[in-house]
């Protein structure tokens, strides 16, 4: 794999470690970390900060029978569920868990201009979708009301800011209006999460948007 150039921000890593991000963002973060050793190491540090914050709290009083109750639960606990084995493929395991399989299991819906999407089920505070952008095709020019994370899983896209290849994540906010174009040669598959609806700049995409729910 080519070297990953675009990483998660500290705010996202810290939010993921603290457990304060919407589920849709957590999925993008977990998928990127599965592909990126640098961010995996950075996350370990943010988790460690959480551990030390927890250890610095004043100890709360436990219920009188707390230890006995816990040992009881241990004695009666069912065996740990088997971890689902990784299917070899394009998607890291956290994404496979949401798709229930790899790339071939995705149920694509066309959203116009040759682009297809599949919205994945998460909590409602943000949304996450897979995007399939044919090689050489542009995603309509759009701005953002909130934060948008776009992680490349296969192929690459180029926008006004830079080139994004497999493993790269683009963190966009209100200030960015961009037109991502998939590089020629290979179709681009992305995982994109947003905490606000995208704002398309043309009339047609806006009408389409109402029907496809992005």
């Amino acid at each position, binding site marked *: 794999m080519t070297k990953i150039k675009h990483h998660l921000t500290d705010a996202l890593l810290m939010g993921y470690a603290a457990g304060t991000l919407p*589920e849709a963002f957590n999925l993008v973060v977990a998928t990127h970390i599965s592909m990126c050793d640098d961010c*995996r190491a950075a996350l370990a540090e943010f988790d460690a900060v959480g*551990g030390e914050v*927890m250890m610095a709290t004043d100890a709360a009083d436990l219920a009188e029978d707390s230890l006995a109750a816990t040992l009881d639960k241990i004695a009666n606990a069912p065996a740990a569920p088997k971890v689902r084995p990784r299917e070899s493929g394009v998607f890291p395991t956290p994404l496979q868990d949401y798709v229930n399989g790899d790339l071939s299991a995705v149920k694509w819906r066309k959203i116009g201009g040759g682009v297809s999407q599949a919205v994945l089920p998460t909590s409602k505070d943000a949304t996450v979708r897979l995007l399939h952008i044919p090689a050489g095709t542009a995603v309509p020019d759009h701005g953002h009301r909130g934060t948008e994370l776009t992680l490349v899983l296969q192929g690459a896209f180029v926008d006004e800011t830079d080139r994004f290849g497999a493993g790269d994540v683009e963190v966009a906010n209100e200030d960015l209006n961009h037109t991502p174009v998939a590089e020629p040669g290979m179709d681009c598959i992305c995982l994109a999460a947003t905490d606000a609806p995208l704002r398309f700049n043309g009339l047609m995409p806006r009408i389409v948007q109402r029907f496809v729910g992005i």
Partner: protein
Amino acid sequence: MGLYGPDQARQSGAAGTKRLNQTDTSKRMMWVAHVVAIRDRQDREAFAELFAHFAPRVKSFLMKSGTSPDMAEECAQDVMVTLWRKAAMFDPAKASVSTWIFTIARNRRIDILRKQRRPEPEDLPWGPEAEPDQADALALQQETSKLGAALAELPEKQRTLIEKAYFGDLSHSEIAEQTGLPLGTIKSRIRLALERLRHVMK
């Protein structure tokens, strides 16, 4: 606070901090040994010691995150049950016991309070050695000790914001609303705090 205040304080405290780190590191290595004892021989005494130390702090952490005392008690017990059941998954070359328990407590909080799934990164493929190297484990425990000490020494304003970020179930903009501080101030204080913490981790 004078111009040289913080640096002077740090220098005079350096020897004391070093001693503290050694004790703290050996305590961390003892906790690691307890988890191994649970893994290898279901050692209840080791578990009771871990329980006495960690369960009250897990409960406190959950209560500060907005969980009711009863729910926090229940969850703290569940977290310790998970520790017992997953003892074989713990890798002291990758995490201190405090870090590991924090991640279990955090996931439990997401599960209970937000009723959400928690996507986790793919596990790294197992290397040829199943047993982590003792030297790696010691180095990691030492680093975490330093981190804990550095967190305690952060300027109050910075430390409070870091705590809020981890306890409060709050995003940066929600912290801004709650504290009345501008978002830019919060971000720069957190950035400064992280720079200090990273400096000691190197």
